[in-house]
């Protein structure tokens, strides 16, 4: 990571809206965006992710503090210069259904073309390359209207790519996509960041994918501002929970890297399993039914029901002194329902 460059840096940045009903959404934000890294911005709905992204992309002026792009204040660049430095993928509705994918991607060359937007050989090479890199070249002659949501997003990413900007900002590029497309898009963005040495920042609600693929996380919480760091540092410092501070019924599952509802059970059970997979899913099922799971050591002397998951087809349950051998989880919960009081 020797050649790591801070493409964008914010010091004491305040973001929000001007005007009569304007308000400061966040103040005193400090961060750096590095080239060659994928950074994910996580935050609850209404935490101000879009506002922050629009400010970083200079579509909305900062309300205070400093925002530097490649060592110079963002405001000191002309519109034209900025268009070659910051590429964006937004959630805005476009009118591009009647363009082919190729034409849509070609729009991204506008900062580099002349007055009439004529494409020269280099522009065309860049477009072909971006279509290829985004994995959408097989659709280049297809109308944008005929694309699936995932393909449309890839086309928009290719469009941002041909702009040849060192910084690419994306506002929820994986929203509304199925899980395959979500993983594809995130993996694509991570690959582009590394291979093209770009700084890529995206906002997302997809915590699981972000934890897997993101080099750095930015956690934006309603009250405590922005927290930045390498993904694993933040996870292991238990910072992910701060995203939804004050939400009693959701907790971050440190083991599996996702959020899950907090267990609301008064019942307890002693759980043993022959391997980790069985233990995980048995616990999942029991939690859903309101059981806290303890292991044998914790349960010693408490006289709790006891479940030993030997395999998915053989579950040994001891409850109230009686022994049952269940053949499935369905069977298990039938027996539990009858025998619990």
């Amino acid at each position: 990571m020797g050649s790591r460059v801070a493409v964008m840096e914010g010091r004491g940045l305040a973001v929000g809206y001007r005007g009569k009903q304007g308000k400061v959404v966040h103040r005193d934000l400090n961060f750096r965006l590095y080239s060659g890294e994928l950074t994910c911005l996580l935050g609850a709905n209404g935490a101000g992710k879009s506002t922050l992204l629009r400010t970083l992309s200079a579509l909305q002026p900062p309300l205070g503090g400093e925002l530097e792009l490649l060592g110079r204040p963002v405001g000191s660049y002309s519109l034209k210069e900025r268009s070659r430095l910051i590429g964006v993928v937004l959630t805005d509705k476009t009118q591009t259904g009647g363009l082919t994918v190729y034409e849509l991607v070609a729009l991204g060359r506008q900062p580099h073309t002349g007055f009439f937007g004529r494409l020269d050989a280099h522009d065309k090479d860049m477009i072909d390359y971006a279509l290829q890199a985004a994995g959408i070249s097989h659709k280049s002659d297809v109308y944008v209207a005929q694309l699936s949501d995932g393909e449309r997003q890839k086309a928009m990413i290719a469009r941002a790519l041909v702009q040849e900007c060192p910084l690419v900002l994306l506002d929820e590029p994986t929203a509304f996509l199925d899980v395959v497309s979500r993983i594809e898009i995130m993996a694509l963005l991570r690959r582009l960041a590394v291979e093209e040495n770009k700084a890529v920042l995206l906002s997302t609600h997809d915590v699981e994918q972000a934890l897997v693929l993101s080099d750095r996380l930015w956690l934006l919480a309603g009250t405590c501002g922005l927290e930045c760091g390498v993904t694993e540092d933040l996870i292991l410092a238990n910072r992910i929970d701060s995203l939804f501070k004050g939400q009693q019924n959701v907790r971050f599952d440190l083991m599996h890297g996702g959020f899950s509802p907090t267990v609301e059970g008064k019942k307890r059970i002693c759980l043993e399993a022959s391997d980790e997979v069985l233990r995980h899913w048995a616990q999942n099922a029991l939690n859903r039914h309101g059981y806290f799971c303890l292991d044998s050591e914790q349960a010693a002397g408490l006289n709790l029901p006891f479940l030993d998951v030997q395999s998915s087809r053989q579950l040994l349950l001891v409850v109230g002194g009686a022994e049952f051998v269940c053949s499935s989880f369905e069977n298990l919960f039938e027996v539990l329902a009858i025998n619990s009081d």
Partner: protein
Amino acid sequence: MKADRSLIYGICLALCIAALMAANLLFGSVDIPAEAVWHILSGGEAEKAGWTYIVWESRFPQCVTALLCGAALSASGLMLQTVFNNPLADSSILGISSGASLGVALVVMAGGGAVGLGLSGFFSVVLGALVGAAAVLLLILFLSFLIRDSVMLLIAGIMIGYVVSSVISLLSFFSASDNVHSFVVWGLGNFGGVSLDQLPAFSCCVAAGLLIAVLLIKPLNALLLGTRYAENLGINVRRVRNLLLLSTGILTAVTTAFCGPIAFIGLAVPHIARLLLGTSNHNSLMPVTLLCGGALALFCNLVCVLPGSLGVIPLNAVTPVVGAPVIIYVIINRRKLQYFN
């Protein structure tokens, strides 16, 4: 592939326009033999002095006016559809031609004379129309920031049109009946409103408006992505929008001042061009829209003189019959048309 297709359509439309211009010169309320028309146009004198007068003072300017008006109205329709991100926008629907009409009404009724005598008359009428059109344009632009829903904006435009029309009605109620008559006749629409003397000035105004439109093809394409994306591509959105509205204002004002408020050409022609070309790309859409508009206006003008010696059908009785079915077709098929999605 795409370029070839638009070139072929361009050539076909040019041939079409040539044929329609010939037909417009040959046919009219007065029967003039084809050889005589040819003879007159090549500089000779006809057997009847009246024929020379009819061809040079009526048919020729009418022909050129129809061509220019068609192109002007269509170009302004296309620009409004892109700027307001609304495929059903056009200067008559948004009330801009009503604004121009009010300007003309004020000049005509205050001046107490027939429309445009001499060059000063020409400019006062054009100025009146321009002020009226600009006022409504600014109002619509202001409303577009308040009303995000595009259909609601159209309805607001229609409301503005009604209010302006009622002001015109009030004006005519309080005016001398002679003026009202000339105003009512003007309101029926007629490409014969420009005399041979006024033709150069008229052509220059239209050419200026069209020139702006053609020079803004690149930013128009960027605007297909929406204003934020366009700004990210280095487009000064405010300046471009002002220029586009200026061009629309000039084109609407000049055509309305001389030919009356002509409906449906500006609305329908961009759709015809999109359906022909199968693209929203202004590189080919703008020129084909101009040619289509010219051809359609010449066709409508030809239909107007079909009754021969019985008289001339008002233009505004013809254009809706030609334009409305196109719009209804487009609305019915909007799910299948790429550019709507």
